Each structure stands twice: as structure tokens, then as C-alpha cells.
């Protein structure tokens, strides 16, 4: 039996960040992606999400369950799409690569948002 782990939001998030990296994205691409998915999924910034839900800042496991699930679903689907696109994302500069990656995440988040109850 292969060794498998129960999938958590943290595991999904790590796969998501790995796919950003594998597509040539740097730390800025990661930050822009977080910004984009939060805006699209929740209609607010990361700071506002933490403040508005009374969660402990920068600990996503203290966010309300629906919010954690929304991130998890979106990051899983975005990672699938970024994996599919691997090798096709390119540009003349790091900025262009980052913009393309962020665009993929934002598009996915717009789709994911349609299935969320809020």
C-alpha cells in the first residue's frame, strides 16, 4: 500500500504554491495569486477577511470553515489548471510570467465563486 495522507487545506495549499513555482512564478506571483483569489472568492482583502471573521491573523486554520473550504477548493482547482499549463506559460520578463499565473488563479477563483453560497 502506498503511504498516503489525509488531505488538508495545508497540503492543498502547498501543491498550489508548488505549481506556481513550477510555472516559473516567484514570490511575487505567489503574493499576487493570494491577493487575486481572496478578492474574487470573498470580495475583500486578506487582512479584511481575518479582521471580519475574528480569526487569528495569518493562521488560516482559525478562519471559519466555509472560508477554509473555499480556499481549499479554489487552490486545488487552480493547481490542476497550472499543472496542465506547465511548460506553456512564458514571457519576456518575470513580470509577464507572474501576470499570466495570477490571471489563471483569478479566472479560476471567478468560476469557483459561482458555486459558493455567499
Amino acid at each position: 500500500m502506498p503511504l498516503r495522507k489525509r488531505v488538508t487545506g495545508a497540503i492543498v495549499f502547498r501543491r498550489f504554491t508548488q505549481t506556481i513555482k513550477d510555472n516559473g512564478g516567484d514570490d511575487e506571483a505567489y503574493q499576487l495569486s493570494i491577493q487575486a483569489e481572496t478578492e474574487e472568492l470573498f470580495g475583500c482583502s486578506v487582512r479584511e477577511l481575518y479582521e471580519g471573521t475574528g480569526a487569528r491573523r495569518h493562521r488560516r486554520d482559525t478562519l471559519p470553515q466555509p472560508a477554509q473550504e473555499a480556499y481549499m477548493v479554489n487552490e486545488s482547482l487552480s493547481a490542476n489548471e497550472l499543472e496542465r499549463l506547465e511548460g506553456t506559460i512564458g514571457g519576456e520578463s518575470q513580470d509577464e510570467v507572474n501576470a499570466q499565473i495570477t490571471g489563471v488563479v483569478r479566472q479560476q477563483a471567478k468560476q469557483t465563486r459561482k458555486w459558493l453560497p455567499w
Partner: protein
Amino acid sequence: MSNAKSWEAMTLPELKKRVWKTWCHINSWKGELTSPPESYVADVKGFGDRRYKKTWIKALARFEAMFTYETCLDAWALISISFNFTPGHRNYEYRHEIIDEFLMYPDGLEMIKDGLEQLFSTGFTSCERENANGFFKLLEERESEHRGIGRAVGFNRAIAGAGAAT
């Protein structure tokens, strides 16, 4: 060792471009600017005379720290992604200035501590922890330069010219 490649100092035009870009990141909503360009000019002027590079370095450090602070979803990612400064990092040259600015946030140090705690608690592989090497190297540098990482650092550095060492 592969990280030991040399880095090139940023030219003033490059620096200005980066300051503008980072300012745009913190002043946009869903990809659209939310502040007029005049605000940008005023914001940069707030750091000093725009003919000097040091003014732009201050602006970059403040804006980058702000962007990192505002978009921080998981504290561990601060250590292994945002502040994992290696010579290839776009902000390597100004890493200390950025950390200094980040530490000016009342909970900045707390966030870094939380990040380290998360990274070294459960579920992280040694490979992922290695991603934090850039951050640890930065700590070493600060240690050797007596900069530390406490909140007082920003203050000490700000009055360094006055020779007010502890």
C-alpha cells in the same frame, strides 16, 4: 552553493519601475488601480527628495513590506516564500530594509515567530524547511551586524547616525 551567484545592483530606473509596480499592487482592486497616479507622486515624495536613490529605496522597502503584510495568509509562507531572500531574489539587495519596515508593524515580529513555529511544527518536510535558508542567512547577517530582529531594530537603525547603540 548554487545560490552563491552574484547579484547585480539595481539601477535607479529599475528601482523606480519596481517602486511603481509595488505601489500598484497595494493600490489596486481586482487588477484595477484604486488611487490616481498623483497619489503615487505624493506617496514617494513623502520619503524624501526624488532625485536621490535613497528616497526610492525607502519607498520600495515600505511598499514591499506593506504588500507582504497585507497579503499574508499563512505565516509560514513569510519565512519560506516572501522572506526567503537568496541572491536571485528580486529584492535581495534591499532585504534588510524590507525586514526593517516589516518589523515596524506592531504584530510584524509576532507574524515571523508564528511562521517559524508553523514551519517547524508538524507536516512540513525537511525540503520545505530548507526553503527557509534564505531567511536564516538573513538572520545570520543581522546578528553579525548587531541588527537583531526585535522591534527595536527599526528604531536603532533609524538613529544609527546618532551612535545610540544599546
